[in-house]
């Protein structure tokens, strides 16, 4: 059984959040980890109750690896959700000439 945590988007601002012991947080490292199918099911059920109470939108389980000092999502999509876009945006330096 792989390790799983629950993620969702926060209703008010849409930010990626993770379900931890003390509620939803933008910090994935604070997420509560399920190590069994039963634990994952319980975790998702708690999250869905939060969604019904309008804290978050569309919670779902994601797989993570415990790399000792940090939890790392297995899918690239989820790593990008955690860390933000892999490209800097918006700030344009002076143009570099294309020969």
């Amino acid at each position, binding site marked *: 059984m792989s390790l799983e945590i629950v993620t969702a*988007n926060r209703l008010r601002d*849409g*930010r990626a959040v993770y379900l931890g012991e003390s509620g939803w947080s933008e910090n994935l490292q604070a997420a509560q980890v399920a190590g069994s199918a039963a634990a994952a099911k319980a975790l998702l059920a708690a999250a869905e109750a939060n969604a019904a109470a309008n804290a978050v939108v569309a919670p779902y389980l994601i797989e993570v690896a415990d790399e000792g000092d940090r939890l790392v999502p297995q899918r*690239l999509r989820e790593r990008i959700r955690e860390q933000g876009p892999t490209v800097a945006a918006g700030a344009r330096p*002076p*143009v570099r000439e294309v*020969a």
Partner: protein
Amino acid sequence: MYRYDEWDQRLVDERVAQFRDQVARRLSGELSEEEFKPLRLLNGLYLQLHSYMLRVAIPYGVLSSRQLEALAHIARHYDRGYGHFTTRQNIQFHWVRLEETPDILAELAKVGMHAIQTSGNSLRNTTADQYAGVAADEIADPRVYAELIRQWSTLHPEFSFLPRKFKIAVSGAARDRAAVKTHDIGLYVRRDQAGELGFEVLVGGGQGRTPMLAKTVRKFLPEADLLSYLEAILRVYNELGRRDNLFKARIKILVHELGLEKFTELVEAEWAAISTGALRLPRDEIARIRAQFAPPPYEAIAIPVASLEAARRKDPAFARWLRHNTAAHARPGYAIVNVSLKAVGEVPGDIGADAMEALAGLAERLSFGELRVTHEQNLVLPHVKASELYALWQALVPLGLASANVGLASDIIACPGLDYCSLANARSIPVAQRIAERVAALGREEEIGELRIKISGCINACGHHHVGHIGLLGVDKQGEEFYQMTLGGHAEEDASLGAIIGPAFSSADVVDAVERVIATYLGLRHPGERFIEAYRRLGPEPFKERLYAAH
């Protein structure tokens, strides 16, 4: 430019109030997400990987300086200081908060803008040639017709719940700069033998999972019949379009399944019943709209302009920019200026709030306060005096907006991809950046000439990869990003769909693969032959051989 009348303004003001109420009810829990989602989508509000994304309509790609300033304000105060121009001539803000969205819509309404029908299964923003009204090769100004379509399609009660989204594009020029054949309905302005204006009407184009080019259903439709004929097409689609299968719901599938002849027959029969009704356009109504797009007060300018010629000779970097980023204007002594949003290493289509404001100021001073957005994710200043071009270029350089690469290999269309989009399978932006950097390092971009590279992060094809000379489609292979390459696509009047060249390339290999395609072309082209012409002459074999020989 078209100016909102009291009806237009009331409509957007009412929509702000309505959405404010809907958001309040969602936040209070009165509306569930299931109930709210279709409401937010009617207002261009998506939930993406990191945040809500608001897509703002820019009707047929026409923007005033004042509107661009308002977009800069929104970027700075409600987002993270930038916006992203899309292949639909719209702008997206990727970091908005649900609770602030009604305030953003209110800011937009102040400058006659909104996000209505920028998502959902509705008639989307009609797109047009970015050189509308100023192109030297123009038959008639497509903005007039795009505006008539905007008024007809906005909150059209019969077409608010179509089987799927619906996109219309209009070109009024000899050269198609609006990718007309990739749209659900494409319109080419034509004149008949008597010199009367009308349209060639094409239906059933689209990209996505099943790419198809639009087919002609009518060689010539008189101008006055535009809206009634569109209504007839939409009625046939609304009734017979597939609602049982998301992947078969676009009109292209209906046209394909019925056959062009049968489809046309149904449209003509529907049209016969409504063609003399209320939608028939009176000449004075067309004239009223046309008057809104009257040319600005141009000066009479003698050509050639000596100061321009002197600057061109003096400054090679300026001369290069003139070659690639300006286009012939209908009026002597004026030029159309393309402002590239494709600086090497930057995000295609992105622009920061400071640059937006600076550009709005330049448009105000040098282009009668007007700008355009292109489907290739660049901006245009449509009316610049030739004598001002050097000063404009000098002002664009420090803003990072003077890349002299329009139509060249580093002018890449890229969707937001997996960096932002919840539908994406792979990233588009970093691949575009790496290709642009490679092309720059090769130092042969001008020698390569016109080359359209287009990248999509998923099969929905927002990055137009099917009509890229080189198209790249991001796919997920067991958790790894791979890129399927198509060659030979083209988006203009002689449009073609690209063909898959072979197995997909890994992210690590894809830039080398693009370079090999370019090298193959350079080695085999005839003098003066553009990439697309060479590919059409040579076929895929030499490219395939070079790409996969080492594998």
